């Protein structure tokens, strides 16, 4: 056992590092410090993506013929590590390149692929995924957005929700209901759509955390050509599964303060009896958080090992978000309580750690829901990893239109 690169991996890492050292510096010199959520930030991100694509560092595992790097999964991991170390990496392209474009590649005709894949790799065009709806969250297949055939076109009406980046995306893949007279999984059809169409309206969602990072997307008589269909009519669920299969790989690691930051806070504050860091209850929790977050780190190392050996990684990475989201919530709340009465303050100029713990406290509930709720993720582990049976289903043989619905 060791943590070293193989000679080939080390050579690749060296090459990536040298390339990054040169181009990251040039990128910074060109753009300077850009604030997130600004047009300049997006422009810088697109520029960086194009730079990577020109050197084969965008979509590293994709064939070079379609604009990728023609590399291996472990090379992709290595480049990602080095890019993060270099302080670069923009999140705008993750969902599009990780989930949407692979779906287009799997189901679209050659002309469509030719038209869209290369611009996406270069960062010219950004894609979003339009699946979740008010009536279909964990149960995505219960979605209601309706597509009705009209000659060579489809007319789409309905609403999506929690769409990451809908307001800045150029294109999206949209899952619709085309036949309400058959059971729910059988009446779905997937399309790609132009997000700039006037019939598409994005409205930001005001989150409980105060931010507006996600959107509702409304479709009012949106007309799409039948050639924009991905997969057969009624096969939308099959297509969606290909998209979602990539989700586990695309959804990244955890953000926010961890055991190091709360240890730093505890060192600075006084507790009930003596320094907060000396409180035995706190020390026990701290040990648990350390063990969990190191456990996740070393689990990623196990996954990397499989990739490095050219094997398919095991299901162990499925534990990641359940642990990290719950830990963030507990850790943030412990920190806020450690601040005692002062913990109620949220101004970054006043609250310790620039209010990172207060912000995490308000963000963590969303993290436990996004990309699969705790409960759905446990179902996935139980069913796909442990091979336990699925739940009893009341909706399998019932036409969608006859299914009981609540709010």
């Amino acid at each position, binding site marked *: *056992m060791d943590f*070293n690169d193989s000679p080939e991996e080390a050579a690749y890492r060296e090459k990536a590092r040298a390339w990054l050292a040169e181009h990251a510096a040039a990128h910074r010199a060109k753009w300077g410090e850009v604030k997130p959520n600004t047009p300049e930030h997006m422009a810088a991100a697109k520029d960086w993506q194009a730079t990577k694509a020109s050197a084969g560092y965008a979509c590293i595992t994709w064939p070079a013929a379609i604009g990728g790097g023609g590399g291996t999964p472990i090379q992709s991991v290595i480049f990602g590590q080095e890019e993060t170390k270099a302080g670069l990496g923009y999140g705008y392209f993750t969902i599009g390149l990780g989930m949407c474009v692979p779906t287009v590649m799997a189901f679209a005709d050659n002309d469509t692929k030719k038209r869209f894949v290369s611009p996406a790799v270069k960062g010219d065009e950004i894609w979003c995924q339009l699946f979740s709806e008010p009536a279909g969250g964990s149960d995505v297949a219960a979605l209601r957005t309706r597509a009705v055939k009209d000659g060579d076109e489809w007319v789409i009406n309905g609403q999506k929700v929690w769409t990451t980046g809908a307001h800045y995306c150029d294109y999206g893949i949209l899952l619709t209901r085309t036949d309400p007279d058959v059971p729910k999984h059988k009446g779905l059809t997937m399309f790609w759509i132009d997000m700039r169409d006037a019939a598409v309206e994005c409205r930001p969602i005001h989150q409980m955390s105060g931010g507006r990072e996600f959107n509702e997307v409304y479709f009012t008589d949106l007309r799409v050509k039948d050639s924009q269909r991905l997969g057969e009519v009624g096969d939308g669920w099959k297509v969606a599964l290909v998209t979602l299969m990539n989700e586990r790989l695309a959804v990244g690691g955890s953000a926010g303060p961890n055991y190091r930051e709360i240890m730093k806070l505890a060192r600075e504050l006084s507790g009930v009896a003596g320094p907060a860091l000396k409180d035995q209850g706190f020390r026990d929790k701290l*040990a648990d958080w350390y063990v969990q977050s190191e456990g996740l780190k*070393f*689990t990623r190392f196990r996954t990397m090992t499989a990739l490095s050996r050219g094997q398919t990684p095991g299901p162990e990475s499925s*534990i990641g978000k359940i642990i990290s989201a719950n830990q963030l919530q507990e850790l943030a709340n412990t920190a806020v309580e450690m601040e005692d009465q002062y913990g109620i303050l949220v101004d970054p100029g006043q609250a310790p750690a620039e209010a990172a713990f207060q912000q995490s406290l308000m963000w963590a509930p969303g993290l436990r829901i996004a990309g699969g709720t705790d*409960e759905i*993720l446990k*179902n996935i582990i139980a069913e796909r990893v442990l091979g*336990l049976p699925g739940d009893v289903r009341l909706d399998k043989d019932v036409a969608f239109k006859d299914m009981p619905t609540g709010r």
Partner: protein
Amino acid sequence: MDFDYSDDQKFLKDEARKFLAAHCDVSVVRGVLDNPERAFDEKLWKGVAEQGWLGASIPEEFGGLGLGRVELCAIAEELGRAVAPIPFASTVYVLAEGIMAFGAEAQKAAILPRIAAGELIGCLATSEGPGVVGPASLQCRVEGGKLSGTKIPVTDGDVAGVALVLASEGGRPGLFLVDLTGPGVTRETLKSLDPTRSVAKLTFVGAAAERVGDAGAGFEIVQAILDRAAVLLAFEQLGGADRCLEMAREYALGRYAFGRVIAGYQAIKHKLADMYVKNEVARSNAYYGAWALNDDAPELPIAASAARIAASEAFWFASKENIQVHGGMGFTWDVDCHLYYRRSRQLSLVAGAPKVWKERLVGELEKKNAA
């Protein structure tokens, strides 16, 4: 990145599993459980010696196989899975590892070949009563090479040939090697939460004792030995926890209630998913411990603490929830769930309870961040 068993190590682990399936099925474990006069299974002990496991990590010059510690971890994982009723941990993780790390050349030559040959069982005697043993409370004394005092409980103390005993000499704590077959030693077998592993009270009245390692460094040496043992014990715990998850899964898939298998109920599915999550956290931390142990890395204190905390939590959770999944049957003597529940307690307590290791971990993190 090479953070998993190698193919050779996997082969060794598979072979160990096959051997234990043939020679340590549950009837062997129950043979010790149900016969209080039996401290361990002698036949299995002999077989394990013949497999070379007792000397797996002992250098060839001392009669061992000279394999690495990761190989020993692989064997430990299988022993834990099989709830093996033998004094392997006391002899190999504590005595052999302790003598290899701190013993004088003469001590190595006297002890290690006998361990490898299956002729010598060891034990570690630190506890003197309820609560955590510390420098202020240490009662056992060595004067002029003679040990006096009482150690309770000592795992495998009733069958061991030698003990490593924590005692103070001239007011300074030290670790001492004591021949338990010599004069001045009285042993009394005690009842344990886990009768598949034996415990004893050892009373010393002027028993011959020779120091292992530096004078005054008793607690540091014991801690260093326990760091090594903690990693290996974590693999036993991991093996046990994995087996509990398998048992719960098998039972849930075959047990019907309200017209369908209970494995289809979310209350059961989520319980098993929770077990899986804890077991994987334990496995990843245990692997890091294995690396640190094998490479004798400066990270060992932190890695061992994390491995022990994660593995103790995983085995405790899996063993108690395995009983829960089995329902009333799980509470019977005849169903095997309690063997794992008992062993999870034995393994969590034997080298210091998790709370001790949590404190050690945080203490080490404080040192690391202060440096």
